[in-house]
């Protein structure tokens, strides 16, 4: 550290000026980039606060000169639109059970892969790793048939089952890696005390794996909440989530801009809250190796 101070002390005045302007330039550049990145979301939000008529004749940026055009009418209409409120409810009915079940089933399997000895363990794990990158497209046609035969095609349940199946490889892989970091002495001690594997799982692994489970839960929740493709195929007008309800308005972009902008923003609110509240865990899930 002292070396460092000496080096700094040797800086000439010219270098200092250069460094200062370098920093100023970087700051300037990144402010510019940040504004660039914010404009799309801000534009959508402002659009959602304007009437269809205003949106058809002028751009959202005119609110800065004529703020009187702002109105919450679109949101009032949206909340009295039963198709939208129903689909909001469907989104929750899909995302919450999926998240819970992926975490529970993934944690059970993750524990087995991390701490139990059984024949073929490594091979099974390799299968799981291979499945990490499987595109969901390969299952769309057969599962549509299978769910049709089971009589659940078009229901919320079919979407939940699909998301669980395709969420599991990542869940198992992530939780296995985290669970393996639990110190072996803790498990040994519990075994000596006569604890069963179930008790070890519930009383040792789950509490210590809290952050990992939170990471997975947030990742899976956002993934399911934001899905459109699976729901587009497996739901009908009674079970469709927000994403599908909103995309059906796209055909007339201009005349439906009120529903589209406020609906899109409504669909963003929950993920944004989750993101800002738990972004640390979300980042952790990504760092733990996302191949989805």
């Amino acid at each position, binding site marked *: 550290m002292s070396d460092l101070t000496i080096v700094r002390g040797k800086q000439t005045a010219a270098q200092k000026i250069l460094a200062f302007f370098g920093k100023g330039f970087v700051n300037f550049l990144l402010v510019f*980039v940040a504004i660039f*990145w914010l404009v799309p979301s801000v534009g959508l939000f402002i659009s959602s606060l304007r009437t269809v008529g205003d949106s058809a004749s002028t751009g959202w940026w005119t609110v800065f000169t004529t703020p009187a055009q702002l109105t919450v009418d679109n949101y009032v209409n949206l909340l009295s639109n039963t198709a939208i409120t129903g689909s909001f409810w469907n989104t929750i009915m899909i995302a919450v059970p999926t998240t819970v079940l992926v975490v529970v089933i993934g944690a059970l399997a993750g524990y*087995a892969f991390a701490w139990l000895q059984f024949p073929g363990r490594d091979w099974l794990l390799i299968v799981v790793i291979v499945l990490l990158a499987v595109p969901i497209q390969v299952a769309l046609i057969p599962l549509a048939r299978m769910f049709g035969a089971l009589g659940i095609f078009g229901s919320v349940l079919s979407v939940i089952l*699909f998301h669980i199946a395709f969420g599991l490889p990542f869940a198992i892989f992530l939780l296995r890696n985290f669970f393996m970091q639990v110190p072996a002495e803790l498990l040994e001690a519990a075994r000596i005390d006569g604890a069963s594997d179930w008790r070890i799982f519930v009383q040792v692994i789950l509490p210590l794996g809290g952050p990992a489970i939170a990471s997975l839960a947030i990742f899976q929740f956002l993934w399911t909440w934001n899905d459109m493709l699976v729901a587009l195929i497996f739901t009908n007008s009674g079970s469709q989530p927000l994403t599908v309800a909103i995309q059906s308005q796209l055909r007339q972009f201009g005349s439906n801009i009120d529903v589209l902008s406020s609906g899109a923003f409504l669909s*963003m609110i929950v993920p944004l809250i*989750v993101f800002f509240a738990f972004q640390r865990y979300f980042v952790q899930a990504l760092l733990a190796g996302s*191949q989805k």
Partner: protein
Amino acid sequence: MGASRRRMFLIALGFLAPALVLLAGLVLYPILYTVVRSFFSAEGGAFVGWDNYVTMFTNDSTFTAIRNNVIWVLVAPVACTVLGLLFAVLLEKIKWSTAFKLIIFMPMAISMLAAGVIFRGMFQESPNLGVVNAAAVAVNSAFGGGDAAYPGATPRGDSGLIDDSGILAGETAVTAGSEQNFPLVGLRADDVPTSAAQAEDAASAGADQITGTVWLDVVVGGDGTVGQIDDGKSGLPGIKIDAVAADGTIASTTKTDAAGRYVLDDLGKEAYRIALPASNFDEGYQGVSWLSSGLITAVIILSYIWIWAGFAMVMIASGLSAIDRSLQEAARMDGANEWKVFSRITAPLLSPVLIVVFVTLIINVLKIFDLVYVIPPGSSKPAANVIAVEMWTVSFGGGSNQGLGSALAILLLILVLPSMIINVRKFREERKS
């Protein structure tokens, strides 16, 4: 011993059973089914061999989809990784790095549908509605490209003027020394620029001149005489005027002043038609047709970068923070400049992270669906097509050819195979160490 091993096996099975059943039934079985299905006809009745795979590369719309996927894979992962790397490196030099990270990373949290709605709105063609073209028009006029534009202007009837496919001209030719006035109507009031002043009579013409005035022959409020320059009528500045000789050559050209007056100089003895070229009356520069077939893929890739550059940045930034800084400090003390420190030390140390980011993005880009489904308007959907969208279209979105759909799904699976192999290799290496 045998009994306890069996007990262990049963316990493991108990923990694994729910996952194994779901993975076998809802992932593994469907993969096999789709492989087999891809060799059967549209309805599944007849075995067709490789036909679906041949169709895939010969059918126009599937071939466009495959070609676009190639463009996506070549452009999007590189762009996201490079931007992410740049942001991650620059981040370390600012004090508000947490805020910056949140802003760039935030789009990752929202659905691609919402992102699609956002970008469809931003890139709308009309500069009155789409922010990108509004900015393009503003920049264009700031750099002097903004010629006066008077869309829709037509001559006042009975004023001796004709509208010849957009060119406004005097009905008869005039000789030097005379006057030719242009009373125009049909303009929107907000198309009259703020620089316009009260219209005024032109000075009388010299021997080699033709003069006149171009004005908006309407008084706000309704007073005034048709074809007369009254008080309250506005001159139209910046209009281009040509004196056209009988053989079609332009003998002289000028522009109107703030009061709408013009003077055409250096004319000969012959008669000239005085014409206002059509360029005065088109819409002027209106930006770019972003959502047209030619540019649509570029716009969708841009929206993808908006979402995924944050992912690359966060991954690379955490990779950077794990690097041992003493090497960089040592190099700096040896007099290496920042670029050398970055290219010789930082970048090589980062390469494992860069590879992970890059592979993840490639897998993700191959399967791209939502953005391509949402952003293009109907007319440019065929040009924007990608494999995942084509797979949906042929098997669910009206096509109902599940044989071809299965073949497209298998194509996607084959395309991600290399990254699966990389994943397994990485896992094996980690096990060894």
